[in-house]
């Protein structure tokens, strides 16, 4: 599904990124990369800097220190190329509640310059994958939380991005809805080679072969595999490992 050049070695590369609000460091020399066909979980307690990091990747604002590359394009210098390879699901619902599912998705395809025929084809493809195609004519307001999220995931993939950013997408959802979203995204990684950066603080959303980044107080405390985390922290569960990394400073 992805038009991302498989030759690329990284989908997202962040180097030495720092950002402060009014003198207070929100991100401190953050650096990591997300490889193609890899699901990277960004784990961090509230206030760790996850949302700031996402705002910088999506260029809602700029950082003066460090660099962000999306599929080889510098976010600050080559913004448009960089953003065209990015799909985003934000923490808050960003759908227009008074419009139908289809109208919301058509708005997105228009913003990404897709023609009517292509757009309809892509919309059908993504909605069918999530069993939502039959509901395309319904107003978004009438959908439940889980279904709204599915529509947002479908929307983020319409322009076939190489990297999908998810900012705590399962917050407030019931267990079956959460599970189905977690499964769907992991399937996209495995079967379609999508790269994913998933911010969460819910440990049960992590699969054993996911990559992990633990962010705490704006600093990276760990990056690597799940096994590696357990080894490094000498713990038996991700939860224990995570707690150890984020509580060592008495939090």
């Amino acid at each position: 599904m992805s038009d991302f050049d498989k030759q690329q070695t990284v989908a997202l590369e962040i180097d030495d990124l720092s950002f402060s609000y009014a003198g207070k460091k929100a991100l401190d020399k953050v650096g990591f990369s997300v490889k193609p066909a890899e699901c990277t979980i960004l784990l961090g307690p509230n206030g760790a800097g996850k949302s700031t990091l996402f705002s910088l990747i999506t260029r809602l604002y700029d950082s003066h220190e460090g660099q962000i590359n999306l599929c080889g394009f510098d976010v600050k210098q080559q913004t448009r190329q960089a953003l065209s390879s990015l799909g985003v699901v934000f923490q808050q619902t960003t759908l227009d509640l008074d419009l139908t599912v289809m109208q919301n998705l058509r708005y997105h395809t228009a913003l990404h310059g897709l023609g009517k025929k292509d757009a309809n084809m892509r919309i059908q493809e993504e909605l069918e994958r999530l069993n939502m195609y039959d509901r395309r004519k319904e107003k978004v307001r009438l959908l439940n939380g889980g279904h709204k999220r599915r529509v947002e995931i479908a929307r983020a993939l319409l322009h076939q991005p190489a990297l999908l950013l998810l900012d705590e997408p399962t917050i407030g959802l019931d267990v079956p809805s959460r599970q189905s979203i977690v499964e769907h995204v992991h399937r996209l990684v495995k079967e379609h080679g999508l790269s994913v950066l998933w911010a969460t603080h819910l440990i049960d959303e992590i699969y054993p072969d996911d990559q992990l980044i633990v962010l705490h107080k704006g600093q990276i405390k760990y990056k690597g595999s799940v096994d590696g985390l357990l080894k490094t922290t000498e713990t038996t569960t991700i939860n224990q490992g995570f707690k150890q990394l984020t509580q060592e400073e008495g939090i």
Partner: protein
Amino acid sequence: MNMLHFWRAMWGIIGRELWRFVRQKERFVSALVRPLVWLFIFAAGFRSTLGLAIIPPYETYILYEVYITPGLMAMIQLFNGMQSSLSMVYDREMGSMRILMVCPLPRWFLLLSKLIAGVSVSILQVYVFLLIAWFYGIEAPWQGYLYVLPALILAGAMLGALGLLLSSFIKQLENFAGVMNFVIFPMFFMSTALYPLWRMKESSTWLHYLASFNPFSQAVELIRFAFYGQFNQYAFTYTLSAFIIFMIIAVLGYNPSKGMMMKKGGR
């Protein structure tokens, strides 16, 4: 990246705004009721107390209702400009603004498209208002209804750009009520919408100065002259310049390196 992408995105933004407007019937009705109250009640009541000399573009004595109609057209656009900026602040708080901002197009273009969408809605409102006013007996030469269109586009763009500019500097929705009071009311009352400049000069010189420098006055005059088939060069230049200045500041306000987040102290 090609022209087709720009074209599709712009239509997407305009289409969404128009569709939302058509669906929100209360917004449509309230946008119409406001100027109609001024026309049917305020102007009718004021008719006897305010005498008007013959001033261009009018060639005869006119009723007060006739005088204030162009001012009310501009008022519709002023409210619309502020309302669309209100919706942008709302969108930003709610996050849907982010969907727009992460699409791979230049920000100035996205803002311009938003602006055009807002202007289209305001022009629709103005023409419905004019239709009702016509039934009430306020008529202009038929060409006036055509000539006024480009004037409405420019005036709407200027007021919309002012709205964009304000939205880029307002951090939260709550602050907006203040802006309504500090922008809409002074702009409207200190303008030629309700009374001609020479009448203002009689009562207060400084008010006269403020009104003549108020870009809203110039937008009103541009519309007034166009409605009677005439071109007011000064008002046109003034409105156009104000539009360019407001738009530049608005685009800077939405610049990720200089804009809203940076003012929160971000670095």
